[in-house]
């Protein structure tokens, strides 16, 4: 046993603390590792992969292996699956993060170290994003394997686009989840709020849009503009625009968007998703900086 001599002279010049990037990465790495071993990560990954697999299997079978491709149900189904699973993943993971740590008393200890709150928040955000990347990559990778095996004529590029856009969506939802997490006192409340937001984004806003379109006779440009505020719709439109078909699949409003904005659509969708990533995170970090961690 090595014993430390109790009265040895101690060098009392403190180490200079590492910079923002180094600390953020250290926390991110820890968070990533913690996340990939957690139950939610394993569950979501399995659910995503299994649903995607069965989806690509069934649709490949329906196509009869004819080697035809187009924007068909495989792609549409995957888009749909992502729309359901990925936001739930991002929102709950984000909502549980800070609130959970606060509840376990971990946050006080971590913040008592020479780290800033921004580093902690960013680190957690990056770490969880890493976990979400892993989850999405595994799920879609499994689908790609089935498609390759079954000879599905979907272009690999469209699947890669779908992966990238799913990630952007996941990061936006994670950001929103972290905002909830920073605001909530208890982890259970935070996660509940996350699930509620998920329901709102997945169903309520669209139902409201439908009602609005029919009852208030929204014009197509208003409908399109309204859709730009829902990250799920943006993800959907962007994957259609980028991956395989053109937006005109989406009827008059889609046609309007194509004709009116054309090549600018990438920029418009990108800006919308980026706003969903950045704005909640900024809000979260401002609130986190002001709130006591207990």
């Amino acid at each position, binding site marked *: 046993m090595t014993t430390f001599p109790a009265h040895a002279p101690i060098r009392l010049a403190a180490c200079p603390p590492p910079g923002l990037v180094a600390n953020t990465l250290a926390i991110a790495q820890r968070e990533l590792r913690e996340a990939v071993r957690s139950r939610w990560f394993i569950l979501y990954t399995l659910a995503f992969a299994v649903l995607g697999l069965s989806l690509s299997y069934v649709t490949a079978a329906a196509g009869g292996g*004819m080697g035809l491709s*187009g924007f068909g149900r495989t792609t549409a189904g995957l888009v749909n699956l992502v729309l359901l699973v990925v936001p739930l993943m991002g929102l709950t993971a984000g909502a549980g993060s800070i609130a959970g740590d606060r509840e376990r008393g971990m946050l006080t200890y971590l913040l008592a170290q020479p780290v800033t709150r921004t580093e902690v928040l960013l680190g957690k955000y990056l770490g969880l994003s890493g976990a979400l*990347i*892993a989850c999405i990559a595994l799920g879609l*990778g499994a689908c790609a394997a089935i498609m390759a095996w079954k000879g599905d004529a979907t272009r690999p590029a469209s699947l890669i686009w779908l992966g990238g856009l799913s990630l952007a969506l996941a990061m936006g939802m994670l950001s929103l989840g972290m905002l909830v997490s920073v605001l909530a006192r208890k982890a259970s409340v935070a996660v509940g709020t996350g699930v509620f937001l998920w329901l709102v984004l997945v169903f309520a806003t669209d139902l409201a849009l439908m009602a609005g379109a*029919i009852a208030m006779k929204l014009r197509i440009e208003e409908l399109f503009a309204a859709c730009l505020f829902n990250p799920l719709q943006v993800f*959907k439109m962007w994957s259609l625009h980028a991956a395989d078909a053109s937006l005109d699949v989406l009827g008059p*409003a889609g046609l309007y968007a194509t004709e009116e904005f054309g090549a600018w659509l990438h920029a418009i969708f990108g800006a919308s998703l980026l706003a969903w990533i950045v704005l909640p995170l900024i809000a979260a970090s401002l609130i986190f900086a002001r709130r006591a961690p207990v």
Partner: protein
Amino acid sequence: MRTLHAILFTILLAAHAAAQDPHAMAPPAPTTPRVASNINTGLIGIRVRTARPGDVIRVPAGIYREHIRIETPLSLVAEPGAIIDGDGSGDIIEIAAPDVTVSGFVIRNTGIDLDKENAGVRAIAPRALIENNTLEDILFGIDLRDAHDSIVRGNRIGGKDLDIARRGDGVRLWRSDRALIENNHIHDGRDAVLWYSQGITVRGNTAIRCRYGFHLMYSDDVTLEDNEVAHNSVGIYIMYSRGITIRQNRMIRNRGPSGYGLGLKEADRFTIENNLMVANRAGVYLDGSPFSTQVPGVFTRNTIAFNDVGLTFLPAVRGNRFTLNNFIDNVEQVSILGRGSLKGNEFWHEETGNYWSDYLGYDQNQDGVGDFVHESYTLFESLVDRHPKLRILLFSPVEQAIEFVGRAVPAVRPEPKFIDEVPLMRPIAIESGRPAQQADRVGMTLTALAMVGGGLGLALLSRPVERRRRTSATGGDA
């Protein structure tokens, strides 16, 4: 004397050709001369003017800047490299005598006057044979006017790089019966259009990036077969025509604002078989067809796949019969625009139905026919048919939610759009040939490997620094 004439001409032509240096072409004359005065003033024109019926004029390689009017039955045959350049004005070749052959030329650079319909080759007499020419940078390509029994074969026709509204037709027939349009490749034109022409055969052509791939107006007894129409605004559009056979054509990615693979407007007596309609905005669009309902519109053995809408019906359409077709993964298999019913159409006949990729039943007795009827009723689709702008919400989870409500609550369930009592369990084989798209298995496998590998890497190897450091530290301690 004639022989001498011919020899002289040949020498002249050869000298002309030798003098041509493609890098040192004279600039065009500052003022464009009037077309009429320009006709048959060039080297080929002189020969054509002086030729006698039945002559075969062989034109050696070279660039000939001239406008030609053929008034004698003769054959104008290019040797490889013979180019006739219209210098950006007027028509280039006008065939005013019957039984004329124009073969093997590169014909380029017509005028751009839409009113005068400047054409690469215009035939105004019967029995023209226009084959194996390459028409480039032309307003109209091959224009047959009252040119019965003509043959247009093996030409490549490329339009001018103009706005679609300012382009001309790649091929146009006007009152030219019994023509054969075969193995031509038409691209970047406006339409290939048949006006008032009966008994035409259109076979083995490709039309890409045009407005209408093939367009029939008041043209009866026309057969279109083995054509490929892709990336046009509309693939094949039949208007006011009767006795139409459309067989083994491939209609792919025609996605203009209308964007039909095949459109039928007030057409009658038509048979649509063995065609492939893939990734169009609408696979088939039906407006008032069949016009008189004594003879059903026949759709059989077609594969209609991955279109936004498989079949689009205008409300009053009736009298079509669909059997043995494949309906595969169209975003919406069958749609009816506005309020109407499909009751007047048959989606199965006697013992024969169609293959529907969204059929949910099974086949216990293994006879290849589903044990339950295929009923298509979906709440969301019926909403979307009524309010097209709601299509923007397509593929959203809310779509499934509404479908679910539609299934669960009979009160809001719409009437079935149509019924197929004997749906096929397996798709029928495609006989029209496949479009040139193959599954990229290698790419997909690589994608799968990269994604799974990356994901696993992130998930499993997220721990390197601490582990390594500890291992080395422990080693040092031991």
